[in-house]
């Protein structure tokens, strides 16, 4: 790794002030499980001069519940999310997603905030300096998305425009299904955005000097029954090829609420709005589930090599609906 200045931040304000001060040449580090790989391979056009460690900020590692819902501090580790009895009992899709990430060692270090902020896995974007790289692309601010004419077997089938890299975050998927919001702090104050809106085609929603501080999930009472299913080439220790989170409420034999989020198919987690709307008011039997799965991929526009992801998405949506209602 090339040298940089490492600064421990002790308050949220200190962290975002330094980030703002070194605008463009500073990065935040929490668990570092993604950032260190990015730095080591020197994939970005500008190498940061300053790495601001936010792990030294007290009070950002917590899971609390009140009548409004669940709040997770951004520094809560994935291991803690996966093993929290509160999360396991009331937000099982979230616990399952945390458990599905990487390996135990990485889950001990990786944080939920970092999981949302990690950079994409696109192999053109990540092509290392050492082997005749890095490669320029739309996401780095120059040229086209290289996946479009290249090997795009793992890329977006939905909502890709200038960049077809998919959202690598497993946590984003159940959070989107659970209508969670990301709390952001920065020099201009605090704000909240929905998890699905946090991801944009070329980057996340964080502005200059901003950082994620908390994740808020509405009360479990309205969340219904949940499931999270992740499909990857290798198990375990792999990023999702497709993942699906579902939150279903069925009353009197009819679906009254359905939320389905799909991961790794688009720049962010995608809510299958057509499928959700279709399900509401229906008895959830096999035929309805099949139709909902078809609805979930309406609008899919696969690239040259990734149409199979549409098929896998449909299969996972069917399974996630069934599994939630089991």
């Amino acid at each position, binding site marked *: 790794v090339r040298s940089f200045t490492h600064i421990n931040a002790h308050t949220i304000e200190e962290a975002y002030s330094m980030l703002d001060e070194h605008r463009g040449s500073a990065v935040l580090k929490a668990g570092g499980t993604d950032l260190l790989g990015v730095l080591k391979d020197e994939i970005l056009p500008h190498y940061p001069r300053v790495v601001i460690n936010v792990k030294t900020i007290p009070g950002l590692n917590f899971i609390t519940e009140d009548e409004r819902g669940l709040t997770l501090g951004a520094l809560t580790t994935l291991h803690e999310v996966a093993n929290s009895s509160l999360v396991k009992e009331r937000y099982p899709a979230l616990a399952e997603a945390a458990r599905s990430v990487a390996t135990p060692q990485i889950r001990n270090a990786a944080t939920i905030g970092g999981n949302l902020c990690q950079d994409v896995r696109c192999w053109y974007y990540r092509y*290392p300096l050492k082997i005749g790289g890095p490669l320029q692309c739309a996401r780095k601010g120059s040229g086209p998305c290289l996946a479009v004419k290249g090997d795009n077997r793992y890329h977006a089938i939905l909502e890709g425009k200038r960049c077809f890299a998919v959202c690598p975050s497993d946590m984003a998927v159940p959070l989107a299904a659970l209508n969670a919001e990301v709390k952001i702090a920065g020099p201009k104050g605090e704000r909240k955005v929905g998890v699905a809106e946090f991801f944009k085609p070329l980057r996340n929603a964080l502005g200059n000097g901003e950082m994620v501080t908390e994740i808020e999930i509405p009360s479990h009472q309205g969340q219904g029954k949940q499931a999270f299913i992740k499909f990857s080439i290798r198990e375990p220790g792999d990023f999702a090829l497709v993942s699906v989170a579902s939150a279903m409420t069925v009353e009197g034999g009819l679906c009254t609420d359905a939320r389905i989020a799909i991961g790794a198919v688009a720049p962010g987690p995608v809510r299958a709005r057509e499928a959700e709307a279709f399900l509401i008011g229906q008895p959830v039997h096999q035929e309805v589930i099949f139709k909902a799965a078809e609805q979930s991929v309406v609008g899919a526009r696969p690239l040259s090599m990734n149409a199979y992801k549409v098929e896998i998405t449909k299969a996972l949506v069917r399974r996630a609906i069934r599994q939630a209602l089991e």
Partner: protein
Amino acid sequence: MGEAYRFIGKTIPRRDAKEIVTGAACFHDDIRLLNMLYGQVLRSPHAHALIKEVDKTRLQKLPGVRAVLTWEDVPDWKGGMTHTTRVLDRKVRFVGDAVALVAADSKEIAKEALRLIDVEYEVLPAVFDVDEAIKPGAPQLYEECPGNVMPPGVPGWGGPRSLKEVVMGDVEQGFEEADVIAEGTFGYEGIPNPMPPESPGAIALWEEPNRMTIWVSDQSYYKHIGYLRRIVGKDIEIRTFGGPCGGSYGSKSMSWQIQLQAALLSRATGQPVKLSFTKEEHLAAYVLRPTSRIHARVGMKRDGTVTAVSGTWLLDTGFYSQTTQAQVAVGCGEAQLAVRCPNWNLKTAIVCTNRNASGIVRGFGGQELKCALIPLLSLAMEKAGLDPVEFFKKNFVKPGDRYVWRDGRRYTYRGVHHAAAMHEGAVRFNWKEKWKGWLQPTAVNGTKRRGVGFGIHGNADIGEDASEAYVRLDPNGTAKIFSSLAEHGTGQKSNITRMAAEVLQLPLERIFQPPSDSLLSPYERGPGGSRMTYAAGSAVIAAAEDARRKLLEEAAIVLGAKPEDLETVDGMVFTKGKPGNGVPWEKIIGADHTCMGYGRFEQDFTLSNCMMTFVEVEVDTETGKVDLLRVLNATDVGQIIDPPGLEGQLNGCLGSAGIDSALFEETILDRSTGHVLNANMIDYKWRTFSDLPPIENVILETPYESHRFHAVGVGEVATAPGPVAVLMAVSNAIGIWLHEYPTTPERVLRALDKSTFNRANRTERGKP
């Protein structure tokens, strides 16, 4: 079963076990020499280009840089099978090819230096497909290889006579006699990386005027001397050290480019230089398996007799051939071992393309050819209604059968009959119950379908090449084995200790091996082709027997007895049957003497091992996911030397470009730019320990006429039969032929016609 032995076949901890698990073993990465510099390689961003200009001026400001070398600064050293590939060249031939070398006081400075070298390229058109590369007008990689076809033949194996193709009998007549004929194009083209845990590296020290010392991280080290001398000149005195190497799987049989890159930097600086590849370089700029593609036709009778095989075997060797001609020779030989057929016309061509090179990988040619040939044979077996296990029982080499081996000579097989292991494996796997016929699933459960498959591979290289050893008996009742054998992870250094111990009847703790230094020990070619058990073992056994004979001859004089009446056990000599009257070695040898034995093994191609793999898979027809449920390997090794070591070798059938090359292991190349896209351990799908299927190993011990312990090696071939077995099992599960490796969800769904979305809904991307 074999004789009752004291050490052979017993479960005994390896000599180096404690060192390895406590971290005391000194691997390449652990070596630090006085004044050692660190090397780095600047790599090409283009798949094919001429270097127009290299500007080093920005480097002058960076302290700690000791040398920067480009093609203009170095001697014209050329390596590879055809000696056409330079260590540094004016032309780069793949993304990641070496452009410049840097030596600096630290790794960090060397890396920083790479950023300060400015290179101007003239980009040339590149070619990435074997059939494209041989078309007229294709970009040409070497002037010496018109049409991108590498000259055939292996100089060291009889040159023009070495095996380049399988041509015999009359294929026309063979096809006329056939009841069924199958033909088509089949490939094994995933270019998987064998990926030993330790990435390649070397330390070199050049001392003027003509001494070069290399600390290798390879599985061999003595044989490098001859190879390197051919490149750098016969007047250079070369010494090599081989430490424990962190795995190889064949790929680190030879790392001449890294070694000579380090040597050039040492030559320029006068200091030792260490060059260690990163995992990214290991994946993108080191060697892969050759790409194998056949366009071929086979004829078969209904009873499983093969009447004709004809066609072309094309191998894509990447930007140069390290040993691909040798892989062709061995592959052609191994095809004859597996398929008994009087009429062959199998031509071959080795083609170079603009990707990182193919090199030595276990399975060496035969795995590559069989992974393409057995699917073709399977089509014929389907037409003839033949069970593949029965087919290979009939066709695999049997005592008295003849075949042409790598040197172009004909040999008669004198090993064991492998049908016994095939039968035993099939019984234990419950093959007859599970095999429902071609393209028939073993079981269907909703959207999940199960299927079984079978693969087979054997190699007559178990006795290839020469080995030498000395065994020295010391008066204090210890023995020293001098063998130029580097430990590459399989425990062979411990195994030769057992063999010497058994001959000398000496406890293992009293047998030592000096450091792996080419100045100390005699010629040993090193591992390859599962040769260690028979070839290296024979040399050590012969050396131990020679030392023992000399000892007993001396003892006969001292004790006034006949040598044949004497025995030695635990460092004592006594009359047979009278251990009570023993005399210690010191009294025989003399306190100021040693007793040295010498042993040599000459190559023998008349024995072959055989490995069979049975697999059962489950295919999720909704997602295309293939799960490996069960693996059973069956083999006959003659005599087990080291039970856990053998078990470990057979369990190694999954990774290192074995079975998993049919499931998910592949090197992914951008087919228009030549970038290796998955040069990291996340995107290169490598099985983790938490995802191991049950593996059973059926091991028979029918004595071979090899050496006094009747054993042969099987380590190399453990990966070879698996990929084709998986392809067969997946095809049977889904009822549709799959002919591409690996069987990814995309390929399975496409075969099931479930990825039709594209055809109906395809929209052009990248256009406004």
